[in-house]
């Protein structure tokens, strides 16, 4: 009880724990813990045989956080910026530091635009998206979707039904937008 000075007693003694749990206390001494102390200056320990790494060639202008003083010498080169999402993302990197919410919110917006752009591109390239296969929902049957949830008292079943909305939502909204635009265009054409 915190209302008096003693620490509440433990249900088991160290001797009992040592018997019940293999390895109990082998890392009791902080000296045996590899992450202690947090910082240990030992540049020779990593295997690096350079003071500063050679620079990987920058084949395309690489976007970077404005909190960096220089382009780091090594970086990923997958999926360079492209399209409208690329414009949004490049702006987020150029204009706002990581400290600014705008930086991250623009990147998230870029992500959503990227999904739409990629879907169109995939269809054009003859490898269209297949929402059924890609969501893996078939595993609801093969991996016992019903019995994994029913009666288990899980806290996440309340919001799992929102997932299909997140997957299908952009399609529905996009479809509606397309209908609205098509109607407007048709009306305008008729007026002419």
């Amino acid at each position, binding site marked *: 009880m915190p209302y008096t000075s003693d620490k509440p007693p433990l249900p088991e003694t160290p001797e009992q724990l040592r018997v019940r749990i293999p390895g109990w206390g082998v890392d009791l001494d902080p000296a045996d813990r590899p992450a202690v102390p947090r910082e240990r200056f030992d540049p020779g320990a990593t295997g690096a045989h350079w003071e500063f790494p050679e620079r990987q060639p920058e084949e395309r202008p690489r976007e970077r956080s404005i909190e960096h003083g220089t382009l780091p*010498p090594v970086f990923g080169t997958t999926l360079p910026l492209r399209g409208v999402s690329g414009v949004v993302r490049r702006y987020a990197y150029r204009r706002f530091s990581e400290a600014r919410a705008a930086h991250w919110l623009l990147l998230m917006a870029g992500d959503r635009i990227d999904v739409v752009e990629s879907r169109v591109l995939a269809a054009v390239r003859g490898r269209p998206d297949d929402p059924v296969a890609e969501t893996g929902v078939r595993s609801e049957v093969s991996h016992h979707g019903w019995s994994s949830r029913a009666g288990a008292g899980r806290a*996440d079943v309340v919001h799992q039904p929102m997932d299909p909305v997140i997957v299908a939502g952009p399609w529905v909204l996009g479809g509606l937008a397309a209908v609205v635009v098509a109607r407007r265009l048709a009306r305008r054409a008729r007026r002419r």
Partner: protein
Amino acid sequence: MRAMVYRGPYRVRVEEKPPPRIEHPNDAIVRVELAAICGSDLHLYHGLMPDTRVGTTFGHEFIGVVEQVGPSVERVQVGDRVMVPFNVYCGSCYYCARGLYANCHNVNPNATAVGGIYGYSHTCGGYDGGQAELVRVPFADVGPAPIPDWMDAEDAVLLTDAVATGYFGAQLGDIVEGDVVVVFGAGPVGLAAAQSAWLMGAGRVIVVDHLEYRLAKARELAHAETYNFAEHRDVVVLLKRVTDHLGADVAIDAVGAEADGSLLQHVTAAKLKLQGGSPVALNWAIDSVRKGGTVSVVGAYGPIFSAVKFGDAVNKGLTLRMNQCHVKRQWPRLFEHVRNGYLRPRDIVTHRFPLEDIAEAYHVFSAKLDGCIKPLVVPGPA
């Protein structure tokens, strides 16, 4: 080569991709033997991590065989069978020189707050990951290590992240003999944290989750006391009650950004993306630990703000410790623990999916179907 690719929130597929190439003299190309899906991958899969580009190959837990090396590589050779830490790191910057490999400053142009991680969005450097046949491994002289002959492949792949991270999380708690340790989350990371807490001399280990099948594993594999938060109106009161109203000495958040337990927090974070993460488990940790106690956070959160109960942390005089795990620094000691049988990483593996079934693998792990705790991904002939 065949590779898993992200197609948008909740959607992944396998595609034919150009194989990776040596882009830096210290690069290697590794042919993946075995990979795993991590709880962190779910944050990407659910579209939570900014700058996750469609077409990205996920996967930061993998082992394989070196297929090609760059001209400056000295310490690994073609044909070596290696395990690769999830951190991409240079070994020589300010942080790496001090052992903070996860915080490397030389590998991620996109952000300074986070280091490099394989297959973990452009925010973590824009590297492709290991849920594929081949993967580019930068700084081959620094990260990868040969897999010891005696080590099982599944143990090795779990040591590249999940188990190393759980062990690291327990260390961040600065456990002293007899400490009461509460671990939030009975996923792979939480289970490893609970097992590791005992190695550091904990006097009591309590695990909290809402998935009964995972709590059963926490009792069986981690010898823990368990509580199902979905069965209790207020888990903080419950934890106070079972600790004589003092609270735990150490609390570990092994849940991260998509925590359940508050619909408002979960929906605003995981579904609407209005905060960096749903800090339910973190807030429970803050509120259930004793004054002057330590909260260790290894659960991952996104870069924007989250509704954390900071005032309570201040008023209680808590020590908050957190980081991504510096994986390779943990290995020598972890290898001993695995060899001695104190840790048995492969016990938590529940599923093995061929790469071609990647969409099912993600759905099963994400929706927590079929008793899934840790799914492995096996590339190779379809």
